[in-house]
């Protein structure tokens, strides 16, 4: 549906996007995730033809956005980061303008505007000037605009930024309902939002794709490394015997002692094979005074931070991202950006 290949965008000496490749398949909600300044908006602007790429190709439904811009743009509804609204128009007038520009007219135009107003819940404010609307309504009018012309793909750039919690929930529900009839790509730097709404995520950092997968697969891949922390109220020597037994259950075991009253055992194991009940049985058998048993599971938050590598590698090419690209799950082929791949090292094999 959307095919992005080796996209590069330079703003003068600044490299905003450094070779992004991914594929978007129909009927899913994609989350485009990354810290601020990662290149999300730039990539979306290039896909929608608002911006021209320095190099690389984007095809939408087989139409190259550079060679056949009009055909490609007809397949896409786009809500930029700042909703592109004309303050002196009413939502109705605004949607009429956008609908006409998308080639609608007459009954089809009226019908689509009606549907868009209804689905986004903006029917009540249809005759008020946009400049007098609240941020939430403005955002909805922006989404209504993207829905017009019934494009197969709807791209929303940070649709929930600056909204209050209730509005965020409403917009999310709207996006979910859009996802039933359209392919939706939404960008965000809020992880919980993406995990709630999206089927698949594309994580980018420092202008590169660092992961592209379904959320479950992502969770599974990275939660496979679990750590179980055991705390005992006894000195280290007394836990030696138990540690020997437990190390057979776990992949590895480390032991630390704080003082004579507290010993901690860290068992790392593969999350697919839950060892917790077995560990409990052994601890019970040993009769040692167990204070706590704390499972450390990697949250999506941790995965995100790992992948986007908390550094600020924006200044030059050498300080760039610290993770391998994982595009094989979405593209269906092992796709890697080779040409710029010399300046980052894999963290996750």
């Amino acid at each position: 549906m959307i095919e992005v290949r080796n996209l590069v965008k330079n703003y003068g000496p600044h490299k905003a996007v450094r070779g992004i490749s991914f594929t978007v398949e129909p009927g899913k909600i994609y989350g485009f995730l990354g810290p601020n300044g990662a290149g999300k908006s730039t990539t979306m602007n290039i896909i929608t033809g608002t911006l021209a790429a320095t190099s690389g190709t984007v095809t939408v439904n087989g139409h190259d956005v550079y060679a056949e811009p009009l055909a490609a743009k007809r397949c896409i509804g786009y809500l930029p980061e700042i909703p592109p609204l004309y303050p002196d128009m009413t939502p109705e007038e605004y949607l009429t303008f956008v609908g006409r520009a998308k080639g609608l007219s007459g009954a089809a135009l009226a019908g689509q505007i009606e549907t868009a107003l209804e689905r986004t819940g903006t029917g009540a404010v249809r005759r008020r000037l946009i400049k007098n609307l609240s941020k939430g309504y403005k955002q909805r009018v922006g989404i209504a605009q993207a829905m017009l012309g019934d494009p197969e793909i709807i791209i929303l750039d940070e649709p929930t930024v600056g909204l209050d919690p209730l509005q965020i929930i409403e917009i999310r529900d709207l996006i979910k309902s859009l996802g039933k009839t359209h392919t939706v790509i939404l960008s965000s730097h809020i992880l919980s939002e993406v995990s709630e709404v999206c089927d698949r995520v594309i994580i980018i950092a420092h202008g590169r794709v660092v992961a592209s997968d379904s959320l479950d697969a992502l969770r599974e891949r990275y939660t496979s490394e679990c750590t179980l922390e055991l705390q005992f109220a006894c000195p280290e020597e007394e836990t030696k015997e138990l540690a020997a037994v437990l190390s057979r259950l776990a992949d590895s075991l480390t032991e630390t002692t704080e003082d004579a009253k507290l010993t901690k055992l860290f068992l790392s194991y593969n999350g697919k094979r839950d060892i917790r009940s077995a560990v409990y049985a052994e601890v019970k058998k040993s009769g040692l005074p167990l204070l706590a048993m704390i499972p450390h599971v990697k949250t999506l938050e941790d995965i995100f931070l790992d992948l986007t590598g908390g550094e600020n590698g924006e200044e030059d090419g050498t300080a760039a991202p610290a993770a391998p690209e994982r595009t094989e799950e979405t593209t269906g082929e092992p796709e890697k950006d080779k040409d710029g791949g010399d300046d980052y090292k894999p963290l996750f094999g």
Partner: protein
Amino acid sequence: MGSVYKKELRSYFCNMQGAIFAAFLLLIAGIMTVLYNFKGLYPNFEYALSDTGFIFLLIVPIVTMRIFSEEKRAKTDQLLYSLPLKVTDVVFGKYLAAVTVFLVPVGVMALYPLILSLYGKVNFAASYGAVFGFILLGCALLAIGMFISTLTESQVIAAVISFGTLLLLYLMNALTSLIPNTSGASLIAFSAVAVLFGLIVWGMTKDRFAGLASALLAETVLVFLYFSFKESFAGLFAKVLEKLSVFERFSGFVNGIFDLTAVVYYLSIVAFCLFLCVQSVEKKRWS
């Protein structure tokens, strides 16, 4: 194109810009008509039009300043470029809307010769020829103003630059008389233009060598031409400037001459400025 045209036209009349434009144009045209035709008792409406021309300096920037700069500032240009519209559609739609706003008060002014004819004999051909010239002049100035508005995000800067440019064009004739008529002076003046050209190339390509090379190339051609046709260089710069004086061409229409070269001249200015507009907008997407 139609959708952009309708949207723009709507915004002119919702923003008072269209009304301000029409009000000032009609006010000045009315005052001039009273002065020349009712007080001065001339039957020639073209004289009134001729003295109305200066108001373009003020009202053209009012209409053109926001055309592109406001879209850029409010980021609504992203919508225009993500919609299935060609850049030429956007530029033409916006330009035609501006021209329409201009034509409304001119349509009212076109009634004046009819009113004058109630009180005496009016040469309609000369009057409406002048109205036609007035329209062409306005269209050319609107195109220039619109191009300037693609260059900046600020309406104020767009307005000031437009005003300055129009003022320069208005005073061009007076300025040319300041330039010495010797061929050496022309060479120096053209050299300055060549250096300016080099600077513009440098600024646009960010390449020092390209700028230097184009300036040197222009200068070489210039020196070669200078030594080949030394006599014709005398007063040449002043002549070139005179040709650039957009306002001056209008005086032909005022004097009852329907000059086809002037029509072509104005249409070329419009075409050239619209072309620059499209390029300027496209450039923003590529940089």
